[in-house]
């Protein structure tokens, strides 16, 4: 079975992770930059990658930069900002054709690495400031991006749950930042933050494809020169639930959005993390799970009724879209399912099918280069080194008792309901 593992090479200031595989027709380069999620820097970190991807001192305009990528057989290049636990992570992703499948064979990988270095180290600037035009464009763009969370009500309800639930914890901060902080950022202050990122962030580069490891390392030594650092690590805040919060907000929606948050008190790397995954699978992760069967199939209350885990913070979040008038019934059914889990009322069949689906899901994820990077990166965020084989093996061995033990740790924290106005 093709389970790829990364070879990790520690260079000054960053690590290069290489996965050699003939599975793809492209080579994928992902640069991850990690720092603790903090209110003071969240909006800076959310804006920065968009400035860097716009242009460089070499490719002075976006059309020039994008034309260059087109010439490299339409290399795809994008950036992303996300939170994992209480870290905020910036990603640069470059996917580039493998010249093997093309009529002419330019050295595309080398050009890709050089391009990424140009984006990171050689921005278009004006003294100790980012180019003001670029800065203003991206500031405005980010403002619209932050506003658009509100426009998508399913997403907004999820955001509101996390804000209400984790009000006093870093995790309550949105990875996009906020409008107020954005207003106060200048092209100079962002440039100075950028210089800080280059010396302080924990940096990891992933290279996935049919490549030569020695060549790749040589190319990185040549193009990526960074100072050594001691990245700031933090453990996610584990908060005890004192009283369950219930927050109901009225909005102009046709469908009520019900989001429920629990504390699992278990994070990635903990011995019972695998049992927690199986717990979530039986409870609400899949279309054979209790939530889907009972909220959707049996009661016909919803189209979607599912749960997912935030592995690094230790949260379990349920989401469902319902008629506002059915709020009490839906909440009751969801509570009943949780009670069933805590009492161990699930069959051997539910257990074995959940294990089979989790295994399938993991193996499928690593079939895509991006999915593989996300799985490997869990280890960087958590500081553990868990191989996919170990993950699969541990999942296979989980017993009913272990799941019931995990269920006892799961605590209801917040019920958020976005209620329609038309009831």
């Amino acid at each position, binding site marked *: 079975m093709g389970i790829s593992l990364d070879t990790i090479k520690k260079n000054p200031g960053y690590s290069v992770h290489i996965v050699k595989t003939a599975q793809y*027709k492209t080579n994928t380069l992902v640069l991850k930059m990690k720092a603790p999620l903090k209110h003071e820097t969240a909006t800076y970190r959310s804006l920065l990658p968009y400035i860097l991807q716009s242009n460089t001192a070499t490719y002075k305009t*976006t059309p020039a930069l994008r034309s260059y990528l087109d010439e490299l057989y339409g290399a795809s290049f994008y950036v992303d900002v996300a939170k994992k636990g209480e870290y905020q992570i910036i990603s640069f992703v470059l996917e580039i054709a493998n010249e093997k499948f093309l009529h002419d064979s330019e050295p595309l990988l080398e050009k890709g690495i050089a391009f990424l270095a140009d984006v990171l180290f050689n921005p278009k600037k004006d003294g100790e400031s980012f180019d003001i035009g670029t800065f203003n464009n991206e500031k405005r763009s980010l403002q619209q991006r932050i506003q658009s969370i509100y426009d998508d009500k399913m997403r907004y309800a999820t955001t509101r749950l996390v804000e209400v639930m984790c009000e006093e914890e870093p995790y309550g901060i949105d990875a996009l930042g906020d409008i107020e902080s954005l207003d106060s950022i200048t092209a100079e202050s962002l440039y100075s933050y950028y210089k800080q990122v280059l010396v302080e962030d924990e940096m990891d580069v992933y290279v996935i494809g049919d490549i030569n490891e020695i060549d790749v390392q040589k190319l990185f030594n040549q193009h990526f020169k960074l100072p050594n650092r001691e990245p700031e690590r933090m453990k996610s805040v584990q908060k005890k639930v004192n009283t369950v919060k219930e927050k109901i907000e009225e909005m102009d929606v046709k469908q009520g959005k019900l989001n429920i948050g629990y504390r699992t008190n278990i994070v990635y790397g903990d011995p019972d993390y695998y049992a927690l995954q199986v717990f979530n699978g039986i409870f609400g992760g899949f279309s054979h799970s209790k939530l889907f069967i009972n909220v959707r199939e049996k009661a016909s209350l919803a189209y979607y009724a599912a749960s997912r885990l935030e592995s690094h913070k230790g949260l379990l979040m349920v989401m469902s879209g319902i008629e506002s008038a059915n709020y009490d019934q839906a909440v009751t059914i969801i509570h009943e399912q949780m009670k069933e889990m805590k009492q161990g009322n699930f069959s051997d069949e539910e257990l074995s*099918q959940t294990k089979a689906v989790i295994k399938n899901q993991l193996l499928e994820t690593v079939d895509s280069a991006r999915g593989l990077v996300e799985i490997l990166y869990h280890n960087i965020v958590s500081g553990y080194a868990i191989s996919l084989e170990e993950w699969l093996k541990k999942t296979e061995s989980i017993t009913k008792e272990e799941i019931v033990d995990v269920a006892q740790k799961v605590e209801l924290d917040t019920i958020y309901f976005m209620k329609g106005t038309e009831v």
Partner: protein
Amino acid sequence: MEKITFEQLQEEIFHEKMTNGLEVYILPKKGFNKSFATFTTKYGSIDNHFVPLGKKDYAKVPDGIAHFLEHKLFEKEDGDVFQQFSKQGASANAFTSFTRTAYLFSSTADFDLNLKTLVDFVQDPYFSEKTVEKEKGIIGQEIKMYDDNPDWRLYFGTIENMYHNHPVKIDIAGTVESIAEITKDLLYECYETFYHPSNMLLFIVGPVEPGEIMEKIRSNQEGKEFQSPQEIKRQFETEPSDVAVKDRTLHMSVQTPKIMLGIKSADLNLSGQELLKKELTVSILLEMLLGKSSPIHEDLYTSGLIDQTFSYDFTQENGFGFALIGGDTAHPEELTAKLKQILFEAKTGKGISEESMKRVIKKRIGLFLRSLNSPEYIANQFTRYAFNDMNLFDVVPVLEQIEFNDVLATTERLIDEKFITVCQVLPK
């Protein structure tokens, strides 16, 4: 079983048409964990007026019935097929589009068993009045979920603007009112008409042995009885070439306005290589004009008219086709005017050139290679192409054939005031 080789791409496809008319394609992919199969019928939301199998007269069915049928096919007398797939470690799904209904699964083990489950459940319907009624609540919530989504409303609002009569303007899921009319008998009638093997295509991609799989499918199909294939008669009202409505404004709970400009396509009887060439040529035109490497995009972005959500797309099938351009904007009126200006100026050659065409073609070739990494993309697109007599693997050769004169001619034909419409979503 025939074998088709695509040398430059280092891919092989195995094909066989079963005696009952079912088309089967297998694309072996070494090195992948995952196998993926789609079982698709050429039946979508637009097929709402047809002669039911065994009858003489045309009949109209309620809006949203193809999608409703897709939901109900998963339910059997002894339970839900989703359960069956997860017991076998697979994850299953389905979707309904304007022209297709696809059932699919992916798995990393027990592929043969899962494939049998897929083929058997799609070929063995079980509908009852009770479960049909229950589904109305679930689909009602699906419809409301989309009602709250401004991007979806904008998309359908634009299509509604374009079409006078064609059923493409009807939401795929129908409405709460239209699905209320659906009965078990109507479902059987649609099923019998459109789920005949001769109207379906099975596509398999993954680390599989094609000869063995083909043999299993053959014996599975030979063990089942079907009526002899019959031509399906669909009817569509005549559709004028101009747009039905020039503009529409929807008010929703949003902070940033959104606009979408639609261009209704003409020459809707194309298929095969002609259709492929047209789709690719229009895509190249849009990319040249509005892509991130164009000075026009830079200008729109710098003047604050567009942001990262700006996008454009062109699609055409037998009987309908459109280009859609738009995104979030703080200045909906100004952006609309500007986009129209850009389109009309393109007819005079502004914003397009042979040089940028070549660059864009190169980009499209890279994009195509990238998409071959995705089994889902290959299976879905291959099927869509096959239903329109096109071949997915012709994309690169057809791209390489496109000349600047083709782009000019396409631009001239596509851009016309009477084909253009605009939909906006504004804050309440």
